Structures are given as C-alpha cells and as structure tokens.
C-alpha cells in the first residue's frame, strides 16, 4: 500500500446545496503521471485543493503521500509540490532569489539550496539569466522555472494546475520532458490540463463531469472504450453529458 501516492475514496465536497465534488474514488501510484481532466466547473480545482490540504472534504476519505487529508494537512504540505495556471514565481525577484525563497520556505539548508539551485539553473540552461528579474523572462521559461522550483524539495507528489496554459507547442513539449524527468526520479505527477495532446502523455487519466469521475483508464483503453480516434473525441463524448454549465 505504501506505493500508492494518492488514495481517494468517496471524496465529497459540498458548498451549501451545491455538490462540487461528488463521491470520487481513485488511486494514483508512486511515480505515475496522472491526468486529471474535466471541463471548467466540473470540480477539478476543488478536488485538487482538498488533496493539497487547502480545504477539508465534506465526507469521504483520502490520503496523500500516506497522510490523512483530514488530520495531517501539515504533513501533506511538506511532501507535495504545487504549481498553478497562474504564474507563481515572484516577478520582482531574480531567478536565484526565487529559488532560494521557495527552497527556504520548504526548509532546505543553505548548502542544499546552493547545490540544488546551481543544478536547477544548469539543467534549464539559465546560467546567464540567474541574476535577472523573473518578470523579464519569456513565459515558457518562467513556467519551466516554476515547475523546477515546485519540485526543488523532492516532494513525493507534485500537483500541476493547468501548468502549460498560454504556452506554445514547442515549449509545452519541453515542459513535458521535465515532467517525464521528474516522474522518472520517482515523483508522482498529478496534472490538470485542457490540452488533449497532453492527456495522451499521461500514464492514466480521469475525466470529471459534474463533480463525478465518469472515466478513468489509460489513454489507449479510453479511446478503445469510447471507440474514439483521439482523446479529443473521448473528452467531447463525456463532456456532452454535463448538465452543469461552466463558470
């Protein structure tokens, strides 16, 4: 069981009469790249916030990195990384300062910070930009940097909330190389996206419709199940059944 990074059983979140997340159940293996798909308003973000320890579920059970989402939110936070669709580094800090800040917040020692920071900068080929304000970097670079910073403390799981929004296809491809690297080093990747080509890159994907998970399998199996040529068609077939309008 320890190999399971995320275990979710009948996880539910209600806001008053509105059931944002409706009894979802799934497991994610350690080192897996898990795609979390769904139209806007389907409940992805709410589900993700519960798993990150940002909000309490109304009912159900879930454990992240082996910790209970009700009781051990602090332990969860120490063992996950997070990167959101909104660009999440400080624009008025340099690349190096951002790395040191986030590393510092996760409790890395000065020595670790130096090593990790240099390693990260070399890997991204940003030696020249290390002392530049992050605000002056192109978006694609920022996203790659943000991802690298999000896993600087070697978390067991990294949550990516539409990480490649607004980025060109080539940079997106490079971004996914970084994701594969991370997964290769044993980090579980939990990613939401609207790009169906990216969905194909995932080991397994789940599709949320109206707060439920209506489909969960490998991309190949899903395509077979829905007799579809691409993930796009699978997604349309599922999203069409939605009664909730997107917000």
């Amino acid at each position: 069981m320890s190999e399971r990074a995320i275990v979710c059983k009948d996880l539910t979140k209600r806001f008053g009469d509105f059931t944002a997340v409706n009894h979802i159940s799934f497991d994610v293996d350690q080192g897996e790249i898990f795609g979390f798909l769904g139209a806007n308003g389907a409940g992805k973000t709410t589900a993700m916030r519960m798993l990150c320890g940002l909000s309490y579920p109304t009912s159900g059970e879930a454990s992240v990195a082996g910790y209970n989402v009700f009781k051990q939110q602090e332990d969860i936070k120490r063992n996950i990384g997070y990167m959101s669709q909104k660009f999440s580094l400080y624009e008025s800090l340099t690349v190096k300062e951002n790395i040191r800040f986030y590393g510092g917040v996760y409790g890395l020692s000065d020595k670790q910070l130096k090593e990790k920071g240099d390693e990260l900068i070399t890997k991204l080929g940003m030696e020249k930009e290390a002392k530049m304000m992050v605000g002056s970097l192109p978006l694609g670079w920022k996203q790659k940097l943000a991802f690298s910073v999000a896993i600087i403390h070697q978390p067991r799981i990294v949550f990516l909330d539409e990480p490649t929004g607004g980025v060109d296809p080539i940079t997106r491809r490079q971004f996914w190389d970084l994701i594969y690297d991370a997964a290769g080093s044993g980090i579980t990747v939990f990613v939401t996206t609207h790009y169906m080509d990216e969905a194909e890159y995932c080991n397994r994907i789940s599709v949320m419709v109206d707060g439920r998970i209506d489909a969960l399998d490998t991309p190949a199996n899903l395509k077979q199940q829905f007799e579809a040529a691409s993930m796009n068609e699978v997604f349309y077939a599922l999203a069409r059944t939605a009664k909730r309008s997107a917000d």
Partner: protein
Amino acid sequence: MKQFMVFVRKEFYHVFRDRRTLLILFGLPVMQILLFGYALTTEIKNAQIIVVDHAGDAASQQLTTMIAASKYFDISASDKSDEDIYKAFKKGKVKCAVVFPAGFGNDLLNGQVAHIQIIADASDPNTAKTLTNYLTAIMGEYQQQINPTANIPMRIEPVTRMLYNPELNGSMNFVPGVMALVLMIICTTLTSVSIVREKEMGTMEILLVSPFKPTYVVLAKAVPYLALSLIDLIIILLLAVVALDMPIRGSIVLLFLESTLFIICCLSLGLLISSVTRSQQTAMMVSMMGMMLPTILFTGFIFPLENMPLPLQFISNLLPSRWFYVIVKAVMLKGLGIGVIWKETLVLAGMTVLLLTISIKSFKTRLS
C-alpha cells in the same frame, strides 16, 4: 525561524524594488508633514491692513508703528477715504482696517475715552475675530507703555498664560495630529497592499500549499513594515523638531514605545483590510481614502472632538489615531509620563490585539 527570515528577506526585496512602495514609504510622510505643518495653521501672519489716520498726532502714529511692527499685519495703505476702504474690502485683499478719529491723541491724554474704529472682513468670522484680537492686544500693550503706573481703579486685568505653547504656535497642535495621520495611512496602506498583491499574482496559493503556516505569513508580512515604519517615525520626528520647531519635552524612549504600539496597531488594521479585499486598487482605496477622511475628522487635531455630537464622539473613539494623538501631545508637548497616558496606551494595546486576532482569523477562514 529560518523559514521566517527567508520570508522577511523576500518582503524587503519587494519593498526596495517597488518604486510606488518606496514613494509611499518615504515621500508621503515628508510631503505630508511639511504640507500640514506649514499650511494647516490657524495663525494669521502678514494680514493686509489699512490704517486711516484722521488724528495725525503722536499717539496715533506710535500705534500705527506698533501695528506695522507686529508680524501679524502688513499695512497696505494709509489715509484712505471711507469709500476706498469698502472698495478695498470688496476686492478681498484687505482683511482689516483701523480708523483713528480726529483728536484721538487728545482724548487719550486728557483721560477721556479714546475711540478707535476697527473694521474687519467678517466673511471669514474666525479670521476677523483673530485679527481684532491681535489689534486689541496691541492697543492694550500701547496703553501699558504710555501709562504704566496709573491704574484705573477697579480695573480687572486678566493675565493669561498659554501653557505648553506660549506663542500659540499652530503647528504644535497639528504636528502630533499629522504624525498620527501619516503613520496611520502609511502603515495601513502598505501592509494592505502587500498581501493583496500576492493574491493577485497567484503567489499566495503557493505559500498556502507550502508548509509555511498562514499565521506566519501574516506576521512575516508585518515585520518588515514595522521596521520601515520605525524609520519613518524617525524621519517624521526629525522633521517635526528641525523644520517645525516642535519640542520633545517627555521621554523619547516612551514616545518611541508608544509609537511602535500605534504602528503595530495600524499594521494589524492593514492586514485586516488586505485579507478582506481582492485587488491592490481596492486595498489602496480602502486604506488611503477610507482611512484618511475619518482620521482627519475624528482624531481631534483639526476639529475639536468635544464639540461633536455624541454619536460622532463615539465613532472617534474607534479610531486608533485619536488615542495616539492624545499620547503624542502629552509626551511631546507636556512632557508627561506613562502615569498619565496609561489609559490611552491600554486602549491602543487592546485595539492591536483585537485587530491582529481578527485579521489572522479572517485570513485563515478565507483559505478554506
């Protein structure tokens, strides 16, 4: 603790790299202190006055010289006809006129009642009253000079002593008020903007997902601004003492401690504003505009609180600056110690604890 310092350092980077923040932090207090210190005063200096001398004797001329010598008046013209006086008043430049009737000196020396006519532009009643008071004072002084010994029997002569501020220097009253105002605006504005900025940028989410505790986020935001506000306090005090001739009669240490308490109180207010607003603009509007007017109205340094209707007096009690104003006046002007201002100090401390608790609470609840 190390995490905390990492955070504080990041906040300092933000402040020093943001021109707008720097401007608010160091430009605003200097500008406001000087502006309010010099512009906001009830003293009237160099008022234009017309002297019409129908007597033309030694007494009238001596008095005229005394008026001219006082710093309150500038004689703009003499020997005008009555009609010219009214014309001058209508133009609005002349605030006051003095008319010596023929035989003024004789009447005075012969022990009769000597009349002088004072005409003032009472479209501004306060100015008119102040100017006539100045003139009466000058005449009284003259009377003393020419006739120091002969006391008219049963004459009552009030001897007024203006305590703490013998020259009735207007800025003495304003500077403590402006100090309260400036510190209040700066502390609330900067802190409120700083948390909202993280919300707008999306970095707040990252902080919340990190193991860094929300309470620490709030405190780590407050620490750098506390340090910077203390620098501001020093600048303000220096300006007050050097440029506006303010005395610091009481203990400087006490003044600093009380100011620190007030600053923390305002920082807490700023934190509260920032946890309930969503954009930097709103936060700035609320803390600058929303705080500026009540602070000016209800601190008591422009409009006396005692004259306000009870409901307004009650509102004024909710403002931290109102209490700080009393404290600063007591320490700076009267040289009093903590024994006299413990009540105000306690109120400020209570407000601080309350505001800080509410802001940390509301910050936390907004997360889930």
